[in-house]
């Protein structure tokens, strides 16, 4: 009985590991520039977020808001030409203050995820 059970587990795990080669998954934030929660001195020219999965550019975007909720980004969210996991949006010159980065993305296999974080530009 135990051997039979182990065989079933082995077959299922093999199926999972094999299937992983062809499947994508939910895209989560891997790292960002500026970093999540960072306090920086120099205003960034653009906001970059690296995700854990490749993205569908048409359904993926980053937005930047100031502390009053006003959208400041250049509305030009796009994938990096060489890295489909890297999403970029341009921003005008930002003054000192706290900013909210909001992202909504769709991974290559159409899973939707979203998130937000803040960063601060020191005066």
């Amino acid at each position: 009985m135990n051997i039979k059970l182990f065989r079933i587990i082995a077959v299922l795990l093999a199926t999972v590991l094999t299937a992983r080669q062809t499947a994508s998954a939910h895209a989560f934030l891997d790292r960002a520039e500026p970093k999540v929660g960072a306090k920086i001195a120099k205003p960034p020219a653009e906001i970059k977020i690296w995700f854990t999965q490749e993205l569908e550019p048409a359904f993926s975007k980053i937005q930047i808001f100031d502390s009053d909720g006003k959208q400041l980004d250049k509305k030009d969210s796009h994938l990096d030409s060489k890295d489909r996991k890297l999403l970029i949006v341009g921003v005008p010159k930002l003054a000192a203050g706290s900013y909210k980065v909001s992202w909504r993305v769709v991974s290559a296999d159409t899973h939707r995820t979203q998130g937000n974080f803040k960063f601060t530009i020191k005066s």
Partner: protein
Amino acid sequence: MNRIVPAGVACAAFLAAMALHQKAGAHGFAGDRFFPPTIATDDPFAVDEFAFPTVSYARNRAADGSPGNREIDAGFEFDKEIFPRLALGISDRYTYQDVDHRSSIHGWDNLAVTAKYEILIHPEHEFIVSLGLESDIGGAGARSVGSDTFSTFTPKLYLGKGFGDLPDSVDLFKPFALTAELGQSFPTRADNSNTFQTGFALEYSLPYLEQNVRDTGLPRPFRDLIPLVEFSFETAENRAGGGLTTGTINPGVLYENPYFQLGLEANIPINRRSGSSVGFTIQAWIYLDDIFPRVFGHPLFGE
């Protein structure tokens, strides 16, 4: 008239819940929050999930004339979203008991069938409410391992709340989340107790900390861990054993991967009736919607 007013309030509340509801998709998301499936208690999401295997171990010392035993359980749970926000699930476990000075006993427990419906998701406040009905099918398991010969029905209320909406001044508390499961069991045999079941899971999500609050530079795999403690209690309400509570406190940790989740928990009995030693449980959740996205991750019928 008296009946019409509460019915109207209930209808209004239901319509409000529908209006506020946002499609969760597969995986348990409410806004930015991912609620992981937990081990000792059930999470509030009606999504495609597959737990296999769940293996637990406990050693019970001899007491009150009963011999001691060593028990190993191996189980599974499979849930499928049938209609939007409504999932059906089945679960069972195989029990092996090595009884002191006696021959071992083993067999399947009764099959459990569960229906769960998400009535409200509030993304901004990372909040979810679901209702469910769990049915243990009497006679489906082996009597040798103590499976009941009668069925038990348990309506359940599930709640989930993430604390990402806390003010920035306490931002290190934002990764906390709480889920709850409350159930009232109704056995179909009159001489058995009704029981009230309570379960809570308090989680601190390091992925949420790193992705939404503060990049601390924590390396992998530590940034993929969710430490948690679960509380699982059952109180007999009447007949033999009325008023007695049994349960476990289960501290542990979950490891998140894009394709699966691994969990490990200790099972600490809250009193002598709940067990005589600390056991442990390990569990793997396989994210079917990420591995087989064309088949899982969406309801069978409807959008």
